[in-house]
């Protein structure tokens, strides 16, 4: 396929179809509506299921059903809609049902606004729902990466029998950029012997349930899931290092904000201030290693987010007191300007 100019949201949608998504359930909300619009038009043409649910709660429960029945399932929403889905997401994690959940984040809390935000970091990485569970969260920073991460998300979901988040935001969803899909065929779904499907009476019926009243049984189930999460931590962490080795200050940012930070790093370079960027591509599991291997040149770390400071908790845990960790952010739907970040860096380094 030739290079195309697409919105991040459209690229997510097309990549889902190419990634073999068989069922999509969703409910409209800005700024992710292009995903729903695109799939409403294209899923039926591809012989797949598109269904607009009556609410986000209905959508996530449809995901539960279709995933239990062995489908390759996706839903998408934006922050308040993802909040509504939390009960279902906890259930998906408990029942070990694979699916992809796209969150095109907007300003909150509550209904909030419709402009870009990254204030759902806690919601996605700390479990918005109840119980001991974690969910892989992939954070793209370009339209190209949005497409690639959806493809990977479906494979990871099948591999681990787990929901996978795509952590996008209003800027990345709405902006257009060139994107290439290549000519590869969609990856095949994993065998799903656990799926609740007809089998002609050849085996015992499969069941999918999350109720476990015996504490010993539930503990065993939780510990088994923890083993799975440990494997994710061991093998699925992704990040980008940008000019980190020579930096006297290392910034940490993901998604849209990492793009602004790269502009700021260029501006700082023009003033002979060496700054670098660690860009987590997985928010959970969080990339601790790059913060533990910083060079002696690095004097401090600055976490930049479109929130009041959420990812900074993980940055502090990773740095573990070895260096001062500071925060800069804009919230409510404001995208920070590169100059603001430059100003903050100079303030921290005591430069004019």
């Amino acid at each position, binding site marked *: 396929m030739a290079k195309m100019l697409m919105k991040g949201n459209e690229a997510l949608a097309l990549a889902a179809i190419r990634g073999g998504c068989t069922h999509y359930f969703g409910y409209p909300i800005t700024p992710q509506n292009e995903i729903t619009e695109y799939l409403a038009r294209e899923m039926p043409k591809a012989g797949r299921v598109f269904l607009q649910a009556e609410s986000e709660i209905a959508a996530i429960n449809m995901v539960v059903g279709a995933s239990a029945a062995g489908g390759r399932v996706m839903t998408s929403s934006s922050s308040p809609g993802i909040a509504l889905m939390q009960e279902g997401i906890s259930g998906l994690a408990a029942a070990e049902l694979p699916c992809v959940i796209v969150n095109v984040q907007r300003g909150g809390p509550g209904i909030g606004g419709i402009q870009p935000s990254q204030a759902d970091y806690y919601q996605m990485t700390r479990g918005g729902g109840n119980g001991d569970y974690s969910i892989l969260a992939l954070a793209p920073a370009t339209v190209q990466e949005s497409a690639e991460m959806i493809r990977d998300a479906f494979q990871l979901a099948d591999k681990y029998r787990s929901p996978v988040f795509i952590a996008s935001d*209003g800027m990345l969803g709405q*902006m257009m*950029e060139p994107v290439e899909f290549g000519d590869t065929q969609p990856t095949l779904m994993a065998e799903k012997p656990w799926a609740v499907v007809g089998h002609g009476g050849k085996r015992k019926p499969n069941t999918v349930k999350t109720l476990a009243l015996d504490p010993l049984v539930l503990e065993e189930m939780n510990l088994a899931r923890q083993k799975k999460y440990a494997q994710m931590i061991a093998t699925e962490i992704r990040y980008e290092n940008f000019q980190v080795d020579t930096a006297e200050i290392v910034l940490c940012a993901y998604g849209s904000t990492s793009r*602004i930070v790269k502009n700021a790093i*260029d501006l700082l370079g023009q003033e002979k201030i060496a700054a670098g960027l660690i860009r987590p591509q997985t928010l959970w599991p969080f990339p601790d290693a790059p913060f533990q291997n910083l060079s002696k040149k690095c004097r401090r770390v600055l976490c930049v987010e479109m929130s009041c400071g959420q990812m900074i908790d993980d940055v502090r845990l990773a740095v573990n007191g070895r260096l001062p960790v500071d925060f800069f952010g804009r919230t409510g739907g404001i995208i920070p300007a590169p100059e603001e970040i430059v100003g903050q860096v100079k303030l921290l380094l005591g430069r004019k």
Partner: protein
Amino acid sequence: MCNEKILCAGFGGQGVMSLGQLLAYAGMIENKHVTWMPSYGPEMRGGTAYCSVMVSDTPVGSPIINNDATCVIAMNQPSLIKFEDTVAPGGIILINSSLTDSTVTREDITAYNIPALDLATECGNGQAANMILLGAYLTITKTVLMTSVIEAFKKVFGKKAEKLLPLNEKALKKGGDIILTIESVLPH
């Protein structure tokens, strides 16, 4: 070295989003790094819609313009008022003078007053005013070739719009030619 930051603004329906998409697509055809970012706020009918386009030789970081536009294309009076300050010092502003009754007040930018709506009407349809301004922009900056824009037109609007291509091509060229005869309001 190309590092253009263009903000296109006007009423909903004037084709400001399309103008930006054509420019971004043409840049992509020429293997430049491009982004296109719309305003998607709850805009009021009759208010200003706008998009930001980056066309660069190097990868684009932020797709957002923060008072550093190399060019603003203002298709109506509210856009002119709202975005005059968005132009970087030394930048340019193209004003659809058919729908504005004032020009810029700043003295550190170059302004071009172009009666785009009247010129497009002469071409056969006032709806092509956006193409007049895009043509003018390309003659001034040479960011991409007009042939790339025409190729982009087919890709962005598809087969259904092919019948509109001659009108748009005519308006693009007219804008490109007319700008050579229009005196800019130069920086003082």
